């Protein structure tokens, strides 16, 4: 690895100041993506800025009116064990227990998963489905960015130099809510998604009140399939409705062919994973109502 310096600021303002005055400096959260990239020289930097000692980035808090505030650097193991997240945002708890193995989950953060901006990032479809908003701070004013607008291309996102992702804000789920994430990998664990589907639904007596669907690994960025969720709103909970939404997800996908699968196979997976994730989220929503 090329020589770099290391800073561990204790406040958001200090971190933003350091990043703004050192062009090319890189934030470090759990390091499970970044350290491998620096070692293999996919990326280079003169300065690594460790952001996980900043309290706001390491906090999980819950408020019935505002919902969940999840610090960008909170490691996965704390997320999957958190009682409120397990109950109110089950897909988020699932995905935090599915990224890597326990050693990775001891370090890896959801903020790092998003900022790494890989199309295959497993947590990102879940964040989109749950309606998460990024709280971003920098040398200028703080701003909010919806997760579906965060990634712009593989390895590219909307943060300006000097800006860091501080936390995610997730709206409270409301009654009759359920969420689920499902990915396809050839092994049982420790692999990169060939395709993945994150969904969140809310139900009213036998009908779908609202739904949000997002996909992993089938486009240059994590893909929000807004039209599939909108189409489902008001439809009865019936296999035909779910199949039609799954077909919309399949049509929205713009996958490539690579060593993990062909474009055609990935399109097929989009439909299957979306339908199954919807069924599982609906099951959770019914349990929530009963």
């Amino acid at each position, binding site marked *: 690895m090329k020589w*770099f310096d290391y800073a*561990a600021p204790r406040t958001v303002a200090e971190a933003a100041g350091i990043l703004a005055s050192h062009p090319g400096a890189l934030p470090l959260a759990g390091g*499970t993506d970044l350290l491998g990239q*620096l070692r293999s020289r996919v990326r280079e930097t003169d*300065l690594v800025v*460790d952001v996980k000692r900043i309290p706001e980035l390491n906090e999980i808090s819950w408020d019935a009116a505002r919902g969940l505030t999840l610090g960008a650097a909170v490691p996965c193991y704390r997320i999957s064990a958190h009682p409120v997240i397990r109950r109110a945002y089950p897909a988020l708890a699932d995905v935090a227990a599915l990224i890597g193995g*326990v050693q*990775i989950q001891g370090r890896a953060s959801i903020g790092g998963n998003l900022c790494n901006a890989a199309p295959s990032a497993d947590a990102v479809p879940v964040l989109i489905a749950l309606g998460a908003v990024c709280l971003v701070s920098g040398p200028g004013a703080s701003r909010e960015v919806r997760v579906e607008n965060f990634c712009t291309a593989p390895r590219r996102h909307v943060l300006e130099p000097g800006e860091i992702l501080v936390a995610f804000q997730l709206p409270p789920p409301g009654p009759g809510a359920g969420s689920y994430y499902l990915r396809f990998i050839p092994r049982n664990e420790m692999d990169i998604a060939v395709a993945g589907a994150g969904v969140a639904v809310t139900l009213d007596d036998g009908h779908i009140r609202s739904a949000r669907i997002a996909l992993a690994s089938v486009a240059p960025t994590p893909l929000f399939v807004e039209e599939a969720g909108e189409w489902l709103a008001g439809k009865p909970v019936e296999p035909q409705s779910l199949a039609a939404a799954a077909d919309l997800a399949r049509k929205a996908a713009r996958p490539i062919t690579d060593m993990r699968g062909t474009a055609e196979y990935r399109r097929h997976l989009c439909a299957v994973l979306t339908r199954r994730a919807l069924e599982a989220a609906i099951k959770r929503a019914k349990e929530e109502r009963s």
Partner: protein
Amino acid sequence: MTHRKTLVRATVNQESVEFLCEPRQSLLECLRDILGLTGAKEGCNDGNCGACTVILDGRPVNACLVLGVEAEGCEIETIEGIARAGALHPVQRAYLESAALQCGFCTPGLIVATKALLDQEPNPSEERIRMWLANNLCRCTGYDKVIRAVQRAAEEMREVRA
């Protein structure tokens, strides 16, 4: 760039240590090359194999994916700290007695990860054990004997606790 080394203070196997390292050195390099603790192994150096597993503030992590400087103020437990007062830990004994190793390269990582599991869950299911050890690769033994060793250690540790 300063090219200046950093002083890190941490606790390793219940002893306070101070070491000077380059910010780019991994915790694994610091343990092995500076502190002389060569029990944690470098297999892949990219987070996939688990041979470098150590316990950092109570959580198993891959020491190749942690910088030495990140360990400032942390508590670290390595394979060298698992046996106490010259006696093997029940997990170590169970691996030996179940013949759950061949070349032994993966074994320090597996034992450290196993100890971390059994410290928090005395009676894990087979599925739980397999998922917990998914980040520890073994190229020789096959995983069945490893699972038996973990179950055997868990049983023994439960008896001692009871």
